[in-house]
């Protein structure tokens, strides 16, 4: 067991007890092969994770939330259309299997990041005291639980890689993003270091451009709007947060940093995928979610 540190993220493999149980629910509900680092960071604040997850879970299981995330993904794909494309794969020699792994990993994040941005925005607004979500009292359609059959394992290079080039890069990214750890897709792309360095090189000029900045802001606004329209209320009373977190400002700042990072991640992943896919095709979900009701009808688990 890792020594508990209130602000140190708790990685999936070091989780235990209630955190481990919640991580399992998160993976199953968000249909992911790994636990997103946002939750691992929140888990570092002890009881904040159970508090925030119980506020998010009712929405996270609904078709309406999945559709909100789908719209955000589609908007990201539309926003990158006029931007210059990084064309990374043409400059890096990768074999068929390496490319397969890389593309499958990009698909995983292309699916996951819009979902995370909607949730992060909901939490951010709730922490600011806003009323989030509607007061649905009818039974809503829920989506199937568990990672889709075709979703690759979420594989991450170690947080402290042995390769000195990667280590230096990770340090630099942590400083600029203000996040406690390097975003997941960077750690995944670090499994192919040449690709990662080339991607960074090719993305940088795009990221500093006004088009990108506008797109980033636009995505954040859309995510906040979608969060406001979630079917169930997301209630995270400040008093309750104060009861479990010594410094509410710290967790608010952390959540805000993730919100900004996820907006960028959506755009970056979409840009990288343009090496293989048309932006129009990127608008649709790589892992459309079946309805849980259909699963029950087919004899699956409720």
């Amino acid at each position, binding site marked *: 067991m890792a020594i508990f540190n209130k602000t140190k993220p708790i990685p999936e493999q070091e989780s235990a007890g209630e955190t481990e149980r919640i991580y399992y629910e998160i993976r199953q509900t968000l249909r992911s092969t790994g636990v997103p680092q946002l939750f691992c960071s929140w888990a570092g604040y002890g009881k904040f994770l159970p508090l925030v997850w119980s506020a998010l879970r009712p929405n996270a299981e609904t078709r309406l939330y999945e559709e909100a995330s789908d719209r955000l993904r589609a908007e990201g794909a539309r926003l990158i259309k006029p931007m210059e494309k990084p064309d990374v794969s043409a400059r890096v020699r*990768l*074999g068929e299997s390496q490319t*397969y792994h890389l593309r499958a990993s990009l698909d995983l994040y292309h699916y996951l990041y819009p979902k995370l941005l909607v949730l992060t925005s909901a939490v951010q607004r709730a922490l600011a005291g806003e009323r989030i979500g509607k007061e649905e009292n009818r039974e809503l359609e829920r989506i199937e639980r568990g990672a889709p059959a075709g979703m690759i394992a979420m*594989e*991450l290079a170690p947080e402290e890689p042995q390769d000195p080039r990667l280590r230096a890069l990770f340090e630099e990214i942590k400083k600029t993003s203000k996040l406690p750890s390097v975003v997941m897709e960077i750690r995944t792309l670090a499994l192919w270091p040449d690709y990662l360095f080339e991607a960074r090189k090719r993305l940088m000029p795009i990221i500093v451009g006004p088009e990108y900045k506008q797109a980033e802001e636009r995505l954040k606004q859309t995510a906040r709007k979608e969060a406001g329209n979630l079917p169930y209320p997301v209630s995270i009373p400040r008093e309750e947060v104060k009861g479990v977190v010594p410094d509410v400002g710290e967790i608010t700042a952390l959540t805000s940093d993730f919100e900004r990072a996820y907006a960028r991640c959506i755009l970056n992943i979409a840009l990288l995928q343009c090496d293989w896919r048309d932006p129009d095709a990127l608008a649709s979900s790589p892992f459309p979610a079946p309805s849980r009701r259909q699963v029950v009808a087919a004899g699956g688990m409720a």
Partner: protein
Amino acid sequence: MNWREYQAKQRVAEIGDRFISYVDEGSGDPVILLHGMPTWGFLWHPLRSSLSGSHRVLIPDLIGYGYSDKRDGFDRSIAKQAEAIHVWMEKIGMRRATFVGHDIGGGVALRLATLFPGRVDRLCLMNSVCYDSWPVEAILQLGHPETRRRLSVRTAILLMKQGLKMGFTSSPSNDLLDSLLIPYATETGKLSLIRDAVAVDTNQTMEIVPLLQRITAPTLILWGEDDRLQPVDYGERLAWDIPGARLIRIEQASHFVMIDQPGEVERDLIPFLGGAKVERLAA
């Protein structure tokens, strides 16, 4: 060739919801090389270069191993591995091949030879799991679900490196050991290997014992005789049970016979692949 160059040669075939990464090189009669635990296809790369001049050499990473599918939540037993190889052959349009299997890969090859005999032209087993020769203690410990929490990736790799060293009479370089373990040097890789380890099941080699006498494929058994993990007695037992099988004991070689004595292995294997007669041992 380093592991990254080897990995860049790998192709991919989807088999249902899973995928297999594999090397496919050369032309001629097909030979499929199956690795064991805790390695991956890279284990065979020296032999690959000497065989691909005269044969079509195929080296799959077993599912849950190397750069094949490493997701959590599927059966990695040798029974499932044999089925996966059977489906993979279908997928790449290959009807029959010679199989060379090491360690768990040998167990998979034995299941193919007994349960899918139409797939197996010839069979070569190297220090293979068989009967109740496995699992070894270290693998049993590795397979405990708690290992995931107890061992960091770094520690797990360190322990496996020490374990691997026991399988050599030669002194493998650090670089070789790192390369053999590289797919498992992430949390995903470590967990996958833990799941691979928990899938070891003596029953899956014991249940085919009555079928060994029905194997019709010419069989060569190469065994590093200093192997303490899979002692040569098991090779002798296989040679006695499989009709016409020939056992060659390789001196100054341990579990990783193809690395300890590559020249010896090639000298015995290449004529066999070319159709050299396997002498029947007197019963």
